[in-house]
């Protein structure tokens, strides 16, 4: 074959089988990339029904054929940017469709968020106690002859006198009031005969009166039309309305509101939960940390097995978010602070165990060698060589965890009745936006303060505060006081967190059932069809036949204790040879076609496929309407037909897992796009040390720090109200959360730029843009990419739970399944979450280690 034909053949093969053209030429990297990406893109396009994505797939496909041909003739192209762009754009088109991004909803949904936003500027913190003075006077509308006595009395303390005792609508009446607060304003109100209150208005504004120094006033009011036209009195009749003059006066000193008191109490509970969980987790995690340290456990086969087992369990626990554990423990021991503490504790033990083990693994062997060289024994080596090295890191990790636990404890109440998050979700449901705003502001402030405190403490610990020696009496006293304070805090927290260890035992059945179902996810199911068998039941009026014998030798059978009974007589229905351990439905079937369950939530067959139900003959069985036709009793059960299939839970989970990944992708992308330009404003070496630069620097930094303290779960709650439930709300919440987090990391990277490189390029005569392009951007790209990957990783974790508060993704479906007691389905989603988090964790850490 001539070479020309051969080249064309390669191109043709590449056109028929994507990637084959490259694979033939042994360019495996490009070949595999094409081979994988084309079915992937087509799959995504079919999944979200986005025809445009087919164009992307086609572009990659055609490019691959062209590239294969070019390579075969010996002129390989450098245009990999084409398929890369086509693929990226296609993925984003799918992602935008899947996560339901509709920016217009930010505008159309604005009215529903406005009360919340305005409430955030006026939190419910302090208020004056108030005292009211209300004067009322009856007035009859319209005037009739003779005028009846009004059926309502006027007020006692205050006197309100209308100039007429009756008037027609739109008449004006002069009102004189006595005995009100002197020199004080009040409002005029009107109460109709059924008690509805409305403000009286004058020229469209609420009518206001002002008393003189004796507490008297007079005002002219216009009689409003205060009842619907359909309820107006017939001619010759009248209705008694009331005029009300109301004064609302604050007195005394500002006092904290009930809201504030509740917020403070629940915030205490939140902090207690976090404290208790952290302390207990540290205690549990220390031995685990040693068990999970490779340098200690790597020696023997058994210890290595223990090491791998501990690591695996820690990783599984860690990849399931605290909020998911909170719901799981809520099912076990009941919602409340105890479940919350258990969830925080569980997740913290795993996280701290891993961090501790890493600290143990990174112990420097040289000091240990030095201590051993002095002739110390094993214990002395540990005390003098190992412990001084790990104590500061352990403490620092514990503090860091405490910081995270406080954050988690503030939102754990969104799913289980514990801590301040519970108030937030209650108040948003009740529409008490001012109260909700108070709690959100409190959460943000507490997190911001603790974030600061814990970072200062950590820096202190790592830069060497001496915990070992006590020198003076004062230090000794401080230490004793410290121990007592700690013990006191611990006891208080124990009390507040409502620890009931006995519940763990009492509800052990719950826990075991849950664990069993979570460990056996519903992967394959067989399609079922409903089958039924029935038997006749007659009443004596319907000419009882001789006992009808049911065939029971083969297949399922139904047996009634009596086939002929009067209404109300006891009846036992039993079925046999039914599928074992299956929910069956037992119903009355009346001759007119009506059906009725014999008993709600009934019944399950036993292991031998038998079921039995005692009841009484239903009164409808003897109805005259049936013309003597008999009633039947049926047993209905699902019977598996055909082969095993992937369960509905798997399909839904796959769909939602993909949406969750894409939510994280879009949020990371948007967050980065916004954070990159802003981060330059928060970099000291960019904005300079001038007055304007400093103001800008501190302003942006402060905003970042405060903003970072707003939990994404709370943002999701707000956005779900704004743009509606669904992935879009979740994406917005994550994006908004990513901007300050990434912005902070980015600006720190910018501050670490090596100025020598900038100087060198300036010295070549390059202009400012060229210096940025050649000396600054190459330094930033690897770091920024690493941070973005890291944030994507975090976003995937967060997007698994953001659905709990309306943010879409897999979390919502997970919670629904748990609420419906479909734990086997929830198990599928749980394992999908674990897998997703693991894979992303692995991919992102691999890519990051390559970059840096």
């Amino acid at each position, binding site marked *: 074959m001539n070479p020309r034909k051969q080249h064309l053949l390669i191109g043709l093969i590449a056109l028929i089988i994507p990637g084959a053209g490259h694979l033939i030429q042994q360019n495996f990297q490009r070949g595999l990339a094409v081979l994988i990406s084309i079915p992937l893109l087509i799959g995504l396009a079919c999944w979200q029904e986005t025809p445009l994505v087919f164009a992307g797939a086609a572009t990659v496909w055609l490019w691959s054929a062209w590239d294969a041909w070019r390579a075969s003739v010996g002129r390989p192209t450098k245009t990999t940017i084409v398929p890369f762009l086509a693929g990226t754009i296609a993925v984003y088109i799918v992602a935008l469709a899947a996560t339901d991004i509709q920016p217009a909803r930010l505008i159309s949904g604005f009215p529903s968020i406005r009360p919340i936003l305005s409430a955030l500027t006026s939190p419910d913190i302090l208020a004056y106690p108030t005292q009211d003075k209300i004067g009322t006077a009856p007035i009859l509308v319209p005037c009739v002859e003779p005028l009846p006595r009004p059926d309502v009395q006027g007020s006692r303390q205050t006197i309100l006198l209308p100039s007429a005792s009756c008037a027609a609508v739109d008449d004006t009446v002069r009102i004189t009031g006595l005995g009100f607060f002197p020199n004080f304003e009040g409002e005029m109100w009107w109460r109709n005969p059924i008690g509805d209150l409305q403000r009286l208005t004058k020229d469209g504004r609420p009518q206001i009166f002002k008393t003189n120094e004796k507490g008297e006033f007079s005002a002219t009011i216009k009689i409003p039309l205060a009842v619907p036209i359909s309820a107006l009195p017939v001619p010759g009749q009248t209705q008694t309305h009331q005029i009300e003059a109301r004064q609302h006066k604050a007195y005394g000193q500002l006092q904290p509101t009930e809201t504030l008191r509740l917020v403070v109490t629940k915030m205490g509970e939140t902090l207690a939960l976090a404290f208790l969980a952290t302390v207990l987790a540290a205690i549990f995690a220390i031995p685990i940390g040693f068990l999970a340290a490779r340098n200690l456990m790597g020696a023997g086969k058994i210890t290595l097995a223990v090491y791998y087992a501990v690591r695996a369990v820690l990783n599984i626990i860690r990849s399931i978010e605290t909020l998911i554990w909170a719901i799981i423990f809520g099912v076990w021991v009941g919602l409340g602070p105890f479940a919350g503490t258990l969830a925080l504790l569980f997740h913290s033990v795993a996280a701290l165990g891993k961090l501790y083990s890493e600290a143990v693994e990174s112990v420097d062997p040289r000091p240990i060698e030095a201590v051993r060289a002095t002739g110390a024994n094993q214990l002395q080596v540990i005390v003098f060589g190992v412990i001084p090295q790990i104590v500061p890191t352990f403490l620092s990790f514990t503090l860091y965890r405490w910081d995270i636990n406080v954050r988690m404890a503030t939102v754990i109440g969104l799913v289980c009745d514990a801590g301040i998050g519970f108030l937030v979700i209650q108040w948003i449901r009740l529409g008490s936006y001012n109260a909700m705003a108070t709690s959100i502001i409190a959460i943000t402030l507490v997190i911001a303060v603790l974030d600061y405190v814990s970072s200062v403490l950590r820096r202190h610990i790592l830069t060497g505060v001496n915990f070992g020696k006590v020198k003076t009496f004062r230090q000794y006293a401080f230490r004793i006081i410290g121990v007592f304070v700690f013990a006191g805090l611990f006891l208080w927290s124990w009390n507040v967190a409502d620890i009931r260890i006995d519940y763990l035992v009492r509800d052990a059945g719950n826990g075991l059932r849950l664990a069993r179902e979570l460990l056996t996810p519903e992967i394959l199911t067989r399609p079922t069809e409903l089958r039924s068998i029935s038997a006749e039941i007659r009443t004596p009026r319907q000419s009882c036949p001789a006992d009808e014998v049911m065939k029971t030798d083969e297949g399922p059978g139904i047996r009634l204790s009596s086939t002929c009974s009067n209404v109300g007589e006891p009846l036992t229905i039993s079925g046999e040879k039914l599928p074992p351990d299956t929910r069956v439905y037992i119903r009355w079937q009346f001759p007119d076609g009506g059906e009725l369950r014999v008993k709600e939530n009934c019944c399950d067959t036993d292991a031998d496929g038998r079921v039995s139900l005692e009841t009484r003959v239903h009164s409808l069985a003897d109805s005259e309407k049936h013309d003597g036709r008999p009633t039947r009793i049926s047993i209905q059960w699902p019977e598996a037909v055909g082969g095993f299939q992937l369960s509905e839970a798997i399909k839904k989970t796959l769909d939602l897992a993909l949406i969750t990944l894409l939510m994280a992708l879009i949020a990371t992308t948007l967050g980065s796009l916004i954070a990159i330009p802003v981060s330059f404003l928060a970099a000291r070496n960019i904005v300079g040390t001038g007055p304007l630069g400093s103001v800008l620097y501190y302003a942006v930094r402060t905003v970042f720090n405060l903003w970072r303290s707003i939990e994404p779960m709370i943002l999701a709650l707000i956005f779900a109200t704004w743009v509606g439930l669904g992935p879009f709300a979740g994406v917005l919440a994550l994006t908004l959360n990513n901007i300050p987090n990434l912005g902070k990391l980015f600006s720190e990277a910018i501050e670490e730029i*090596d100025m*020598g*490189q900038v*100087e*060198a*390029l*300036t*010295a*070549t*005569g*390059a*202009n400012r*843009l*060229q210096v940025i*392009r*050649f*000396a600054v951007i*190459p*330094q930033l*790209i*690897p770091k920024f990419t690493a941070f973005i990957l890291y944030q994507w990783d975090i976003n995937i974790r967060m997007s698994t739970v953001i659905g709990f508060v309306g943010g879409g993704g897999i979390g919502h479906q997970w919670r629904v399944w748990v609420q419906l007691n479909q734990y086997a389905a929830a198990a599928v989603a749980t394992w999908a979450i674990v897998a997703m988090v693991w894979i992303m964790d692995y991919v992102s850490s691999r890519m990051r280690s390559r970059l840096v």
Partner: protein
Amino acid sequence: MLTVEKLTKVFPGGIVALKDVSFAVSKGEFMAVIGLSGSGKSTLLRCVNRLITPTSGRIIWDDTDITKARGPELRRIRRRIGMIFQQFNLVKQSSVSTNVLSGRLGYVSPWSSLLGYFPSEDRVRARRALEQVGIPEKIHERADTLSGGQQQRVAIARALMQKPQLILADEPVASLDPVLAHAILQYLEQLNREQGITVLCSLHFLDLVHRYATQVVGLKAGELVFQGRPKELTRERFREVYGEEAEMATLGKPLD
């Protein structure tokens, strides 16, 4: 001809880095600048290509007042002055070829350079520059994978790309071992002799000064304390510049 007249630099915070420094360098000289750390050597070199703007005084180079230049004019001056640094100052994350090509930034079209495009004659020139410094095979590697001596060669290649008439070398061998130090300085000497490029080089070691320099200026606390031929720089004069510890100031035994 490079003339420095009464050059003074006071940094914000009142630190006087240079005080009334005046000297002249003829074309084609290899001038060593000696002095303790903090004596003002780096400041002096950076004033010449205006990475630092002096507080007062003038620097005249071939009838152009460098101290008055601004904007595009300053960049045109800078592109004729190559500079090499103690820490090499390569863009570590970029490839060797990009680093070398960035020496042409003052010459090429600014906009196309932002897209990473360089004319093909520049690419050829870059390869030749790397051949000249002896590491042509490293052209596609990332700069931070190279050893210190190789990095300094890349930095020299970058400076060569500028077609410089003057090279400023700010302690070019302080981060290198003695063998590499001689290799780099020999290379500068070769450029100086064969292409007539004026070299201004700060050095720490008396034997290196004697071996390579044709002219020496000594700085002490920002003031000019010595100017002359290397042979006039006796041990005693050297000690005056460096203080008492100068005794051991030969290569391999740094002063600071």
